[in-house]
């Protein structure tokens, strides 16, 4: 979950609802989370200094917007590399001999 959230924030800062939209859009609807679950995850990321947040005004209401920190960018790169290695290994095992 945390890695997916970091990836959603890679291109631009976003608020919680927008992050959920991005997850849904980029996964072609596969990731439709119970929306409340992302906020504890965002808290953990912020506690680990991987994201930072700031309050903005959005049409008269307060909106918390998250952005990736340099440490978050580094963590995302590391998790992307780990995922490539893992998924590549799974492909090699699972798809060996497939057509």
């Amino acid at each position, binding site marked *: 979950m945390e890695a997916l959230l970091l990836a959603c924030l890679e291109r631009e800062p976003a608020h*919680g*609802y927008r992050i959920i939209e991005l997850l849904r859009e980029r996964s072609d609807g596969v990731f439709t989370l*119970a*929306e*409340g679950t992302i*906020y*504890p995850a965002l808290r953990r990321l912020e506690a680990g200094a991987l994201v930072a947040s700031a309050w903005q005004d959005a049409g008269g*209401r*307060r909106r*918390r917007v998250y952005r990736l920190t340099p440490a978050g960018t580094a963590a995302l790169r590391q998790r992307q590399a780990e995922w490539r290695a893992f998924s590549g290994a799974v492909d090699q095992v699972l798809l060996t001999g497939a057509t």
Partner: protein
Amino acid sequence: MSDDRPIEHYLDRLERLLPGRDREELIAELRDHLLESAARLREQGLAAHDAELLAIARLGDAETLARFHGARPWARPWLGRVAAATAAAIVVTALGAAALHPLGNDHGLAGRLGLQPHGANEPSGVEVGGVPLPRGVSPADVEARRLRARMAVLDG
């Protein structure tokens, strides 16, 4: 409570369940989330009230969300005290009844209390999910305990 303002009712309820730290910020953040979600749903043709209800359903129930954010299951202290007192009364009653019961068995007070004799925790040879069960514990016992724990979570 206001049935025509489900989001505000939901947030009021959640605010009572959440621990003190960061509560106001989290409520403000979730209010923005719910209003944004409801607005999108209205754009898709839902009536305002239905849009608010669906936005809340997608976010998740207040109790679960509060637990995600560190609320104790007994968010209302008086309810916790009542539960603790009830549990204590049950234990005291059970101990008294067992100690006074004339038909004990060979395992003394432990046996009277229904506790297992020495060796009862040795593996029985029966496994559930790859985990060996202690002797005297059946898979049905495990399932019953799992269901009771699940119901306790839901009731909480």
